């Protein structure tokens, strides 16, 4: 086996991560118009109109997520592996793996199910359409703890690591990502303004930080794979 082919599983997993995030961006921004999000202050009639307006895009885009959303696990797998390469306890790697795996159902299944249910029956009672709309957007923006603690676990591992798997500044970028989960909390309370789920802080600032963070960790994972030397015997187990 040549040196390059021996990294096939890492490279395939990495390409799947890139493909997943590209699909995610295209579906959420272009097909479904879930991002930027709908207005939280819509009355029931306006929510019904929102569902009717985006009917086809919602159903098709969410179907793509239903089909291929499981590929999100590739980034979880790679990041878990990155922590295994660090000079820290396996507890960090397994914590990250569990936290991000359980985030899948509340973090992206719920919005797909709720908004599909709304789009499927545009003639449903507008008050119920609003209930589905709230469930969709709030479960998506408001599933916070798993990402908050998950980012802090990864950050701590990076800062403690002496194997140089990631640069220390990236540890602090994890802190920024964790803070987005803190400042999004008021979207459970406010229906208007910068703290609402579509607001300047809860959406615009958060989406920029999350986009930057995701882009950076994808590139750093690529660098980790390129530099991946023989495995420490302990990490292979």
């Amino acid at each position: 086996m040549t040196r390059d082919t021996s990294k096939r599983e890492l490279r395939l997993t990495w390409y799947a991560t890139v493909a997943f995030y590209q699909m995610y961006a295209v579906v959420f921004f272009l097909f479904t118009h879930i991002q930027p999000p709908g207005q939280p202050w819509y009355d029931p009639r306006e929510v019904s109109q929102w569902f009717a307006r985006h009917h086809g895009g919602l159903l098709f885009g969410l179907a793509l997520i239903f089909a291929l959303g499981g590929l999100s696990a590739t980034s979880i797998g790679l990041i878990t592996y990155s922590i295994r390469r660090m000079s820290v306890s396996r507890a960090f790697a397994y914590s990250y793996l569990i936290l991000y795996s359980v985030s899948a159902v509340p973090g992206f299944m719920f919005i797909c199910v709720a908004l599909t249910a709304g789009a499927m029956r545009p003639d449903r009672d507008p008050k119920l359409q609003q209930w589905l709309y709230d469930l969709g957007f709030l479960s998506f923006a408001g599933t916070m703890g798993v990402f908050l603690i998950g980012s802090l676990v990864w950050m701590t591992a990076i800062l403690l690591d002496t194997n140089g798997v990631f640069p220390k500044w990236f540890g602090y970028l994890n802190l920024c990502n964790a803070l987005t989960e803190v400042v999004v909390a008021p979207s459970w309370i406010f229906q208007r303004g910068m703290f609402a789920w579509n607001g300047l802080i809860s959406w615009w600032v958060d989406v920029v930080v999350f986009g930057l963070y995701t882009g950076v960790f994808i590139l750093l994972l690529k660098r980790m794979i390129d530099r991946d030397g023989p495995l420490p015997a302990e990490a292979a187990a």
Partner: protein
Amino acid sequence: MRRTTGEQVILGALPLVAVIWIAAFFLFPGFTPPMSPRASAAQVAEFYRKHTAGVRYSMIVFNWFCVALIPVLMLIVERMRGMAHRTPVLRYCMIGVAGAAPIAFLTASVFWLLAAFRPDRAPELTQMYNDLAWITFTCGVPFLVAQSLFLAVAIFLDQQSEPVFARWVGHFNVVIALALLPAAFAGLTESGPFAWDGLVAFWGKNTAIAVWITVMALVLRRALPRDHAAATTAEAAA
């Protein structure tokens, strides 16, 4: 004397669990035949009033046992340790989806149980819970699709003289992933083979899941370490 290993206990329990799954499947009045997405709110409400007990008992059983698949998935993950891979990354990917697939099903059972909890609720509310249950149940395949794809890749990359699973198991998993995919698109139509009560999205998908569990159980049975001494050594080394 040969003693039974823990892994054999897990795999040995599977036929029993499978009998429970099949019984619950046929006990749920909404599966035979599958409820139509075209039913009006009044018809859906009438269904829950008529079949309250059947929905409750079958979905309580599903809620208990759908997650019983997880230990079997972990047997596959353990076999993956023996694959000629450089890193454990594909095993982590498998673990990453192994919990979510049964939990998606568990969530569907919660919506069905909610619909049946107050059969005298306003029909539109019952219909909404029913929609949420069926969409979660039918479209909630992303983790199963990814699981089959990860396993297929893992098997194809397991290039050694005596691979853990034969290559055909990899091809088989690709076929299963493809058979599951159409169910994801069930929201797009209310009639025909791709609707949630359709030939492809209901019967095709659920048959694919049943076939996958059966075939993987048989493949696992051959791949488990037979000898207790070897198994304990392997367990202790890992």
